[in-house]
């Protein structure tokens, strides 16, 4: 834990006007504050990978949160409000949620981009896509979850490790066909749509 580094990162986050960068700076500060290494997931990761305006409403972080970590968060000005920990910055509020202790995927696929003076750790592209795909199966219409998965493939179709995605989809379908089979069908539909649109002459 590095108090001075965390405070420096939170100070820079307080002056950052761009929402995505601000959230990533807070995520980088959390790497200094918490006892385990936190990984950014959800909407912030989506916006990082797609570069589209997803407008994440909070900062989702996977990390096992201990009592000591909670005390450390309070020491740095975070307040517990419902399921979120909120941090008031100069002209912004960052709402942090810790939905799970670990990411559903391969931690070696995470990335650590340089954001100002910080290096947040972000879920890998392939695991983010699988997470969005899983959520898209919860809805029967093409809602935000479907478009979110679509955006990930549109942004980075050539960069996604499709062998890994197929392997994980097979495993999910073997373990839980009620989830895995719809995920496989959606995956096929999403890839087909992206290929069709991007191959059309502009």
């Amino acid at each position, binding site marked *: 834990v590095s108090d001075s580094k965390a405070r420096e990162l939170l100070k820079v986050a307080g002056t950052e006007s761009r*929402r995505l960068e601000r959230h990533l700076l807070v995520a980088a500060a959390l790497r200094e504050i918490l006892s385990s290494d936190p990984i950014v997931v959800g909407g912030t990761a989506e916006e990082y*990978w*797609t*570069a*589209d*305006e*997803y*407008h*994440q*409403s*909070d900062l989702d972080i996977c990390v096992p949160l201990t009592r000591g970590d909670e005390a450390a968060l309070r020491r740095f000005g975070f307040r517990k*409000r*419902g*399921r*979120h920990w*909120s941090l008031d910055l100069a*002209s*912004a*509020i*960052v*709402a942090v949620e810790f939905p799970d202790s670990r990411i559903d995927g391969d931690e070696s696929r995470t990335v650590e981009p340089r954001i100002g003076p910080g290096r947040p750790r972000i879920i890998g*592209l392939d695991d983010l896509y699988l997470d969005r795909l899983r959520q898209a199966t919860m809805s029967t219409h093409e*809602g*935000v979850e479907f*478009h*979110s998965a*679509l*955006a990930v*493939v*549109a*942004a*980075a*179709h*050539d*960069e996604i490790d499709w062998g890994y995605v197929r392997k994980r989809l097979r495993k999910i379908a073997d373990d839980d066909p009620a989830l895995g089979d719809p995920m496989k069908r959606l995956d096929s539909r999403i890839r087909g*749509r*992206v290929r069709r*649109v*991007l191959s059309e002459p*502009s």
Partner: protein
Amino acid sequence: MGTSQAAVSNMESGRTLPTLSVLERFAEATGRPLTIVVGAPSRLAGRDERRRRVRLVLGDYRFDPWERRPSKVEAQSLEADGLTRERFEGSRAAEGRRH
């Protein structure tokens, strides 16, 4: 290659990091050359290109954080950044008029 089976196993599983000379002996022993690339540029397209592709595929669809039913603190966070409910309602109304 002049090293123990346990050392090779540790290297293969990632528990130890081999030196360059060990890698060279490994390549000679297996008869397969090893290529190490460092500092290679990311294959990921730049932000503008990624956004262009997303907009092309998503068309008129815009992400609306208010559809995701934000909690009180999330709503305050969005409003502090000017991402108000009214702003997105305006966009939805304009989109509705186009269709």
